[in-house]
């Protein structure tokens, strides 16, 4: 198990280097050079231009710049935002908890509904339930997320007035930042109503963001279950007089979870890298919204750093999923 872990970890190093190379190249693919891009439409006199090029170290040879970049990135130094002059890492860490909280809620929502729905659809295959689950999930999967989010806002916030339209918490509450997760901070603040407000702000973004993962998981779980239910060991388990529930949950589900786990990993990775549409629509102060704003402002260090960090998160999540494979599937654990 440990050697399995180390092997996976070893594979990560080239992957990570590849990403830094891409991100590094990004800044040099901008027409002109980064300083020119920075100066915007008004332009800049050549003396100032040359001064800034030296200041940013942009007139050194590219390989030197790259090595310098990788070493700095490894130490967590991703440069400063051109707009705010804040450290990119600092800005990221300030916003990540919001994205993390939303992603966690969305994936929980998707898992708790998607997997049982997929199991039921597989167990009752070709029944009304199956067709219902598959139809709804296909609709959910095909729904453009921005439109779906707007529909949710129109109906639940505007029409019914049940949930707030945007933000993480109502303005009258300002809980002290302890964990960065609003649900927990609002509870810790002890203010009555703060938690309620934070939770109600989470509902619509959770649904909007969780819909596609939910639909994907439901369909994936169903097909994985159907495949496993046709296996010899499922028939053999039934032949030993085990109850259908036990066969389903213990013998079939465990094996069906292996492919489903891959999908969960991919979804979690994508969610954590920031939900651009959802965060923008609900004014959710997370990574996705931050990146979009940085792109609009041509804040290249932020874009660069944001991409690198998001990619790192995706890699980390995939590593965790690989570890979980080993836990779920003994054949992987015992691979030599």
């Amino acid at each position: 198990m440990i050697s399995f872990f180390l092997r996976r970890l070893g594979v990560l190093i080239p992957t990570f280097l590849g990403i830094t190379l891409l991100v590094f190249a990004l800044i040099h693919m901008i027409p002109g050079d980064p300083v020119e891009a920075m100066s915007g439409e008004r332009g800049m006199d050549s003396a100032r231009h040359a001064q800034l090029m030296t200041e940013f170290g942009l007139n050194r040879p590219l390989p030197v710049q790259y090595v310098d970049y990788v070493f700095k990135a490894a130490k967590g130094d991703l440069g400063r935002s051109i707009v705010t002059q804040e450290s990119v890492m600092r800005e990221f860490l300030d916003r990540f908890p919001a994205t993390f909280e939303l992603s966690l809620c969305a994936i929980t929502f998707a898992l708790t509904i998607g997997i049982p729905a997929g199991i039921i659809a597989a167990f009752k295959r070709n029944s009304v339930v199956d067709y219902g689950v598959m139809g709804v999930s296909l609709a959910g999967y095909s729904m453009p997320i921005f439109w779906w989010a707007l529909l949710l806002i129109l109906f639940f916030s505007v029409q019914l007035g049940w949930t707030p339209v945007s933000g993480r918490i109502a303005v009258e509450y300002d809980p002290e930042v302890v964990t960065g997760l609003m649900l927990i901070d609002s509870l810790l603040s002890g203010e009555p109503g703060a938690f309620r407000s934070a939770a109600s702000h989470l509902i619509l973004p959770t649904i909007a963001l969780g819909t596609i993962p939910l639909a994907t998981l439901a369909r994936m779980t169903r097909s994985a279950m159907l495949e496993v239910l046709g296996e010899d060991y499922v028939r053999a388990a039934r032949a030993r007089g085990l109850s259908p529930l036990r066969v389903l949950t213990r013998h079939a589900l465990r094996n069906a979870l292996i492919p489903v786990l891959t999908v969960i990993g991919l979804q979690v990775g994508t969610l954590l890298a920031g939900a651009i549409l959802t965060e923008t629509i609900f004014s959710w102060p997370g990574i996705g919204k931050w990146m979009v704003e940085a792109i609009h402002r041509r804040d290249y260090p932020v874009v660069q750093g944001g991409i690198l960090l998001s990619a790192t998160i995706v890699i980390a999540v995939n590593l965790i999923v690989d570890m979980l494979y080993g836990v779920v599937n003994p054949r992987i654990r015992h691979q030599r």
Partner: protein
Amino acid sequence: MALLDIKNLSVHFGTEARPIIAVEHLDLQIDAGEVVGIVGESGSGKSVTSLALMGLIDAPGRVSAESFSFDGRNLLTLPKRERRAMLGRDIAMIFQDPMTSLNPCFTVGDHLIETLAVHEGGSRKALRNRALELLTQVEIPDPARRMAAYPHQLSGGMSQRVMIALAIACNPRLLIADEPTTALDVTVQAQVLELLLRLQRERGMALMLITHDLGVVAETAHRVVVMYAGQVMETGKVPSIFTQPRHPYTEALLSALPENNIGRERLQTIPGVVPGAYDRPQGCLLAPRCQYAQESCRTTRPTLASPDAGSQVRCFFPLHTSGPKE
């Protein structure tokens, strides 16, 4: 009274309008402690019969029978829960491919303990000891270490031994073995078969041995049921069924055995194939492939007749009978 008594069993797949007949008008009795060999080509309905017996025929499959009882209890009217409780406890089954019949996510011990816990219960420690004892009985060396092994760490023969341990865990009175040695190495086949027969003798359980190896049947079974295209063609005692087969199909199967072809250049074969789902002959199912077939064979189906006690034959012109028919 027979332990297992099946009368007129039919298993159909497909739609009501266009059924695919897997088993048709099958009668089968097995007495306690008896070893019955079921032989026939692929597609003759051997496995479907055993799955019907286990209640493992899923929709769209349909099972119907005039009588379908085990130990005096009607399996068709028994509540689902009670029927299920009989599986693994009173009737157990082992399958053709042991490597895929064990759940890859669980250890040998998990499998055994789960089965014992479901049917018998008891403390974790007692169950573990029972499991160890079972592994010893199926001659698995170093059972304590094997308990923690996963299926992918076992050989085919070892897996089948584990399957057998699982099957005999609750002392069933009938063990169905569906081609238990087909997927195994030739060197292991004899050992596994020997093990099955030893357990059968020691425990006095009935054994329904499904195989297409007539040699195996000749050595092990008390009685043989020959199936073809979902019907019983002949039943008879060993060894008389081998020396004096009554049905042309049985005779043809025997003449295709390598040991009956010594000195010939080529093995004898039965021309043609088992009829498919939609081209079942109107008359005797074997008629198109039977060298003795007469005109009447092609138009009317023969019924299962009992020329003497302990044997049955579905043929208008049975062989080796002293009667006037020959």
